[in-house]
């Protein structure tokens, strides 16, 4: 899933200062799962904004709405009625959600209430970590199912570098060395021979380096 984190109340208030009526829009998919921008978080942020406005003496009316997916125009349409009543939208979706709202409602400003962090997984309640960098050219078959692009601090493809110590990365003692994990995994699988091969120079054009990406499935088009 896409993991997001809410911006500070102070930053959010700065973005929407001057508006008297704002819609806080949540998303029911990834950011609901990571407790950043679902229905509950919409309610929490809305209350906080109302309270802060009251304290500051500047009146603000907050409307709330949470839709299934902000990255889907079909669901975005459900916001229409409320959007028509406000001066600005505060999206609690990921970056794709914020932009889909902006592209759908062209006449009204949209602001991001979250920082979109990464594609990751839930490690435990309240803890998520990055797993995929969406490089567009998956190498997991070579690396024991552990991604060096997303999980090595230097994204090196022929690690571990000289900074790997006791299973940890040189940048921080709490960061696992991805290449130690790869080594251990391949060893357990009896596939250490895979690490004798040099992984060649990567084609980064499949990554965002090739420009904004698009995917077409002709067979799925209507």
């Amino acid at each position, binding site marked *: 899933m896409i993991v997001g984190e809410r911006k500070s109340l102070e930053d959010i208030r700065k973005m929407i200062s001057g508006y008297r009526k704002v819609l806080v829009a949540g998303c029911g998919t990834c950011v609901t799962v990571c407790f950043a921008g679902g229905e509950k978080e919409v309610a929490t942020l809305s209350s906080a904004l109302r309270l802060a406005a009251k304290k500051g003496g500047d009146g603000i009316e907050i409307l709330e709405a949470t839709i299934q997916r902000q990255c889907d125009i079909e669901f975005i349409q459900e916001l229409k009625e409320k959007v028509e009543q406000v001066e600005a939208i505060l999206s609690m979706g990921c970056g794709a959600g914020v932009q889909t709202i902006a592209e759908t409602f062209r006449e009204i400003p949209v602001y991001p209430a979250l920082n979109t962090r990464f594609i990751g997984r839930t490690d435990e309640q309240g803890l998520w970590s990055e797993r995929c960098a969406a490089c567009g050219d998956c190498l997991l078959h070579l690396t024991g199912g552990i991604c060096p692009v997303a999980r090595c601090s230097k994204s*090196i*493809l*022929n690690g571990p*570098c*000289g900074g790997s*110590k006791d*299973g940890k990365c*040189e940048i921080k003692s709490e960061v696992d060395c991805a290449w130690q994990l790869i*080594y251990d995994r391949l060893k357990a699988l009896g596939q250490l021979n895979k690490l004798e091969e040099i992984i060649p*120079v990567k084609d980064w054009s499949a990554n965002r380096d090739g420009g904004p990406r698009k995917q077409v499935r002709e067979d799925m088009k209507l």
Partner: protein
Amino acid sequence: MKSGSNLEKILESGQFAVTGECGPPQGADRSVIERKAQFLRGNVDAVNVTDNQTSIVRMSSIATCALLNQMGLEGTMQMVTRDRNRIAMQSDIFGAYALGIKNILCLSGDHQSFGNHPTSKNVFDLDSIQLIHAVRQMRDEGKVLGGDEIKGVPKMFIGAAANPFADPFEFRVVRLAKKVAAGADFIQTQCIYNMDKFEKWMQMVRDRGLHEKVHILAGVTPLKSVGMAKYMKEKVAGMDVPDEIIERLKGAPKEKKAEEGINICLETIQRLKEIKGVHGIHLMAIEWEEMVPVIVKKAGLLPRPTPPSEVKK
């Protein structure tokens, strides 16, 4: 000869090589290079110039190497893949060669979080092994990575680093083998303080026959003080400083700590000279370049075999 560099000539003739290191200044002051050069000239066969080490912005390695070459030394340009993509790196290799630089050391580089621009973006288009491969392809096939032919091929003597003290230990020699397969001609190791571990690593190197395929230069750095030893042990990534080294420095009288550090360094060099497959030392006297002439002399490594060429304009 692959490059015809002084370092290559010495290593290929089977002589014990000595390389030094010069950290460029955090600014454009060339007098810093001149000062360091006077201690290195005639005492080492080539001088590594670090490439924004620990991610602190410094004078570029390429410019500093060119200055050292003018001063009668031979620069070894360190190149990290952190800050440049394959376009910029290959371009700089052309430029470096045109400026007379013939040795390159290919590294991935310290992560930018260590330096004075921790909020910068890193590149890592290539890793160190892929950079070695690129430099060799440029030299031996006369082609850039993209396949286009090069007009005026840069004939670099290709170096790489090895850290016998990083983990997983049993994989370290495999990684060295990959660097050799990619095209490394010489290897410079991390600073050695744990001799037993280094000897174990060298045994693994010999078991794979790598000592016959690549020149290994063993890294040594004299310790100035107990504080420096502790810093290296605790703060520098991938460094292994055994407690007995620290205790030995602690035991020396206050005014003799530095001297004891030099003694440890000299004993290390003596042991390294005996190890089969070690073809030289890489002496990194970090911000202590004035000790290089003393160490090299006391270690019996003078005079250097081929005197570096005189100042050329």
